[in-house]
């Protein structure tokens, strides 16, 4: 059985920042990544990020992944990223079982663990929602921005949160027509600057609308949408049909953290954070000492917060292992301040409420 000091599960923005942070304090880090490439969902983000310089604002997500991976290289063998390695179990004695390359199965015993496993896209229930041509918005983003392949010719986007609006814009950048963006909520959930970018391209954003049904035999051929009232009930007679070969579902993400539940950390359903999340201290440490969480696995937020949490969790996990730098408290306060700033505005209301509920 392999023994490691610090095991980080996931190499997205939170995991990579945690690795950099912990290694800069002196810890030896192993990062597990289930995909064949590191970077998580950063690798498909072609837009410039919000936030401040500390979270690489104004850089494109794809480039932030490069920046972080270059930093990781500088630490030499203090950070190892193991690709094609899925953590499939997490046990009481801090043993994590790993499936490598879909065939090799082995155990890793870690002194400390940071779970940075991210999130998954939710689906939406409507007749024929399983037709090929209906995808998660993030999946379409992967197809076009990672592989350079168009999902189709005409797209209906369901969900006007940041992902829905950003992916719509990126579809247009790839030369694909977006017929409309709809959302059941009465207001646009995305940052309004993103919505305005799309609106001035002539894409209508239809709030208080939902999908009534998808139409098609083998693949999606059309979608019927309708208006909803203030209780989200469909309003009869408001149906509209769009002939589209692609529908993207962007109705939110759920934290992906089954490993922590399996390990037995205290979890709680927190609607503001979009699902079950681990209870944790302000240092991102769960109810089991030495086990940390960072990024979307601890609640759905922006990538900027995931990076700040990663830096914080990495710093604190390393300190617990005995690698406490002279400027520990200064750095810790700086990361806490970044998180506070990112969450302090009106768009952070929900997150702040969720943070209170999930605080140990």
């Amino acid at each position, binding site marked *: 059985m392999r023994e490691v000091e610090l095991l980080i599960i996931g190499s997205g923005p939170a995991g990579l920042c945690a690795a950099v942070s912990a290694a800069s304090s002196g810890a030896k880090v192993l990062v597990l990544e289930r995909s064949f490439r590191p970077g998580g969902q950063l690798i498909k983000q072609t*837009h410039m990020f919000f936030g401040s310089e500390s979270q690489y604002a104004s850089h494109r997500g794809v480039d932030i992944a490069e920046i972080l991976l270059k930093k990781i290289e500088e630490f030499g063998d203090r950070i190892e990223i193991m690709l094609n390695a899925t953590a499939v179990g997490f046990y009481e004695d801090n043993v994590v079982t790993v499936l490598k390359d879909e065939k090799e199965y082995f155990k890793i015993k870690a002194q400390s663990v940071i779970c940075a496993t991210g999130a998954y896209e939710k689906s939406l229930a409507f007749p024929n929602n399983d037709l090929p041509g209906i995808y998660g918005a993030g999946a379409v983003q992967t197809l076009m921005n990672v592989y350079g392949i168009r999902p189709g010719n005409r797209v209906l986007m369901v969900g006007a949160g940041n992902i829905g609006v950003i992916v719509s814009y990126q579809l247009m950048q790839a030369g694909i027509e977006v017929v409309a963006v709809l959302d059941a909520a009465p207001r646009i959930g995305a940052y309004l*600057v993103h919505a305005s*970018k799309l*609106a001035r391209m002539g894409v209508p954003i239809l709030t208080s609308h939902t999908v009534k049904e998808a139409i098609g035999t083998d693949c999606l051929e059309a979608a019927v949408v309708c208006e909803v009232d203030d209780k989200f009930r469909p309003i009869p007679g408001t149906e509209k049909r769009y002939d589209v070969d692609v529908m993207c579902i962007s109705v939110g993400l759920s934290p992906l953290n089954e490993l922590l539940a399996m390990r037995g950390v205290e979890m709680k359903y927190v609607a503001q954070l979009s699902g079950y999340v681990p209870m944790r201290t302000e240092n991102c440490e769960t109810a089991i000492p030495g086990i940390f969480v960072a990024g979307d696995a601890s609640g759905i937020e922006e990538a900027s917060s995931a990076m700040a949490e990663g830096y914080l969790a990495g710093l604190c996990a390393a300190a617990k292992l005995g690698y406490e730098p002279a400027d520990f408290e200064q750095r810790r306060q700086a990361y806490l301040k970044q998180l506070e700033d990112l969450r*302090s505005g009106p*768009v952070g209301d929900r997150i702040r409420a969720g943070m209170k509920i999930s605080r140990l």
Partner: protein
Amino acid sequence: MFEKTGVASREMVMTKFPSVERINKGPVAVVECYQKIPCNPCQTACPAGAIQIGDDINNIPERDENRCTGCGMCVAKCPGLSIMIVDGSKSADTVEFRIPYEFLPLPEAGETVTGLDRAGQPVCKAKVVRVMNPPSFDRTPVVTLEVDRAYLYDFRNFRREV
């Protein structure tokens, strides 16, 4: 309405524009950021210190029309592409706009394009004056267009005519 459509009203737009006197003096930034979100690259990018956000990164940026030189450093840096430069010093009949445009193919200088408003509806013709895409803009090209003054508060985007 803005929160339902993403299209800012004329009243909202007017609050972000500097005075016509200032516009007629030379280029100046219009920062169309209406919502408090955690973001400050415009402040960091401004070499003149003309865009201030302050201590709270969620504050809405304030542009000082007297300090702003209209250099345009903020245009390609704004993650929300919410900033444009207007310049009314070139002619009594037209205004020059500098707007970010992240689509291919890029227009060419001299080309006539269709000017669009904030809802993407055609409102006027516009003439492309210049296309800038240096490495420092990091793949957010900035297009300068000449537009009839009558559309000062309407023009916001363009599409190429095919």
